């Protein structure tokens, strides 16, 4: 046997081997390229997640709406979702956002276009369901959160986002807005870049101004009003910050550029509105009586905008003074304090704590941040219950907190009247059939019949307990607690003292 080194290969063979080696490295780099490309896919996947809520809505639409109505059969929810995005983005352009009624009204019209035989009420209901679904009302309006595989990080990640945000505006009215992600979903379907949103916005405005009729002028005035309100809001925020923490406000960086910009905007608006008012006055003088109403309305709107701008201008001019007053605090000799700052030293550390840790410290935090509280006790049984609980707690058996006593509202409030009536009728029927029964037997029977929900059975229990406690209110029933012979009366109450179902006898009342 000879080793390859003893017997060198002919040159052609070496070339061939090099060729193989070359093609192998090329293959590797090609694979590497494919892998990198695959890593880039994460971006696409992330963007695709934004459409999940819409696709889920389309997929689950047959289950939505009242039972048996098939509200969404034949309705294209994808189209309706985008129609809604379109409407909200338009409202964001000319107003502070879209009002719920406005969205529902607009969408109901679209629903009607697709399915004309749907009643007005059901069109509105379908619209409402679409809006709520895209606000994630299924999960109490929390952000959507979807998992995906991030190829570059090689781990599973969660993307949380909202498509539509409901928030209270400066005028204390709630309005819907498209979020950054909402715009991305909407504009990506229009094949536009998100960054172009601003340009689209400006283009639209320009187009409206170019047309130059008064209706458009009113809309432009409306838009300016929106910017004014936004400025007013920012100014308020700045004053709020200033009043709270003057040490962290930088005049040159935070305040001056903002004031300059705001002042320029407001002055330009006042001037422009002045011109518009002048033109309008001439127009009103010349026009025939029939058309005067509309013009007068427009005149009033612009005049109102102008006075709002003047007020804001006054506020901005007075801002310097406010800053100086607030700043006087900085000249005082700082006290030596061993306390931490609540906002920038304590709150962020608390916010970084895990939910688990916060939860376990919540009692301590509540105790330390509140005045002493006096526990309320309403009847002697409650005292025994507290003693019993405390006893268990001391022995380390209790996992729940000591039960402090609070005034209970009528527990039946949680049930709909219809359920209460149904369960009352059912109990009547059981007692009539059995003559005498106990609560446990009624519950078992109701479960066996399989026609009541857990909530309905719970209502039955609440009703029985309440009627047992207050026989005057029981409609034709008599409740009695069966004594347990094994039960001993000790200071520590055992559970059998309480009603537990099988010891509550129900019979026809006298």
């Amino acid at each position, binding site marked *: 046997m000879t080793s390859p080194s003893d017997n060198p290969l002919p040159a052609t063979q070496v070339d061939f081997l090099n060729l193989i080696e070359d093609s192998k490295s090329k293959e590797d780099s090609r694979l590497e390229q494919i892998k990198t490309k695959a890593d880039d896919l994460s971006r696409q996947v992330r963007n695709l997640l934004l459409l999940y809520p819409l696709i889920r809505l389309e997929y689950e639409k047959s289950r939505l709406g009242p039972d048996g109505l098939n509200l969404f059969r034949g309705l294209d929810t994808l189209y309706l979702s985008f129609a809604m995005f379109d409407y909200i983005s338009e409202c964001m352009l000319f107003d502070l956002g879209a009002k*719920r009624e406005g969205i529902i009204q607009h969408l109901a019209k679209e629903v009607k276009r697709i399915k004309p035989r749907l009643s007005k009420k059901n069109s509105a209901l379908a619209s409402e369901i679409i809006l709520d679904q895209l*606000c994630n009302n*299924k*999960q*109490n*309006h929390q*952000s959507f*959160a979807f998992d995906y595989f*991030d190829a570059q990080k090689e781990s*599973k*990640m*969660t993307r949380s986002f909202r498509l539509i945000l*409901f928030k*209270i505006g400066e005028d204390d009215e*709630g309005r819907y807005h498209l979020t950054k992600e909402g715009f991305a979903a909407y504009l990506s379907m229009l094949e536009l870049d998100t960054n172009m949103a601003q340009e689209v916005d400006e283009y639209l405005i320009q187009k409206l101004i170019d047309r130059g009729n008064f209706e458009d002028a009113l809309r432009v005035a409306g838009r300016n009003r929106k910017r004014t309100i936004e400025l007013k809001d920012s100014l308020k*925020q700045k004053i*709020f910050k200033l*009043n*709270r*923490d003057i040490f962290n406000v930088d005049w040159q960086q935070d305040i001056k550029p903002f004031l300059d910009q705001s002042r320029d905007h407001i002055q330009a608006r006042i001037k422009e509105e002045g011109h518009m008012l002048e033109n309008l006055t001439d127009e009103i003088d010349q026009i025939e009586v029939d058309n005067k109403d509309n013009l007068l309305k427009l005149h009033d709107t612009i005049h109102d905008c102008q006075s709002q701008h003047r007020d804001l201008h006054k506020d901005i001019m007075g801002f310097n003074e406010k800053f100086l007053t607030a700043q006087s605090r900085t000249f005082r000799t*700082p*006290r030596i*304090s061993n*306390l*931490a*700052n*609540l*906002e*920038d030293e*304590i*709150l*962020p*550390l*608390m*916010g*970084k*704590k*895990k*939910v*688990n840790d*916060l*939860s376990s*410290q*919540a*009692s*301590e*935090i*509540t*105790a*330390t*941040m*509140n*005045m*002493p*509280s*006096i526990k309320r006790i309403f009847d002697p049984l409650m005292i025994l219950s507290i003693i019993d609980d405390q006893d268990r707690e001391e022995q380390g058996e209790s996992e729940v*907190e000591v*039960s*402090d006593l*609070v005034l209970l509202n009528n527990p039946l409030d949680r049930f709909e009247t219809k359920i209460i009536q149904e369960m009352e009728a059912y109990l009547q029927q059981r007692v009539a059939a059995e003559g005498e029964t106990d609560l446990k037997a009624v519950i078992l029977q109701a479960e066996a019949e399989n026609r009541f929900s857990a909530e309905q059975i719970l209502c039955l229990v609440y009703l029985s307990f309440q009627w047992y406690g207050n026989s005057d209110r029981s409609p034709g029933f008599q409740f009695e607690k069966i004594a347990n012979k094994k039960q001993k009366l000790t200071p520590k109450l055992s559970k059998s003292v309480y009603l537990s179902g099988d010891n509550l006898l129900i019979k026809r009342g006298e």
Partner: protein
Amino acid sequence: MEADLVYKSSRLVYKGLLPKANTEKDSEYKDLLKLCLSDHDFKDSVDAVAEGLMLAVVDISEQGIILTPLSSESRFAMGLSEYRKELEGDSDPQDMDAKAKRGLIALTQVAIAATFFPTAEDLDDDDYEVLGKSAAIKDMNTVLMNMCDNIVSEEDQELIAPSLKMGAELIKALPETLPNAKVPTLKYRYGAITIIAKHLEKSGMLNQQKTSDGEVYFPTYKYQQLLKRRSVGRLFDLCHDYSQTPKEPKKHDQKGDNGE
């Protein structure tokens, strides 16, 4: 004489336990406070009675006596059971879990305090200037959200169990408000803040006023003193996990607990 001293001391402590006891309307309270400010023996006796009840005297002035539970073990310590109604699960299967609700209550309480008293300087401000500054629910929400925005990155998060997420993430995922919301609940931020603010108002730590800008709250002297002498120190310890709490009172040692 001794019995009289004990009677008067316990009477003053009792008045301190009433959330809205007012010296203007209660002459006995006013006299007891005057006595306490002038007589050291009486003051010692008041301290002792309070300590025996697992309470600490935070401040005594002509405006009133401010007490605080000596620790969370005290029977006078306000527990989360005050928020029992809000903490109870409802029939909604998507309701937040109990841990998240408890965490939300804890963070919101700190954020409200930070809204009125952002710095140590504000807590030390004895000329009441700071007490004249109001804040609306919206402002409290701003403070809470600023904190969350600074902590929670825009980046996607690793997939982890909800209880291992940061409190700030929990708050950020909540909606600001809900359409058609009638009763404040822990399901949205404005609701959570309103619940806590109303409670603070009920216990005399905030005053609510209606202005042209809507409802606003003003902090009271009581709130400022409680935070300054008690809460901030304890919160600092909790932030850094120095979690030892005094279980039994050590006689005349309250000052150590007052963060002084």
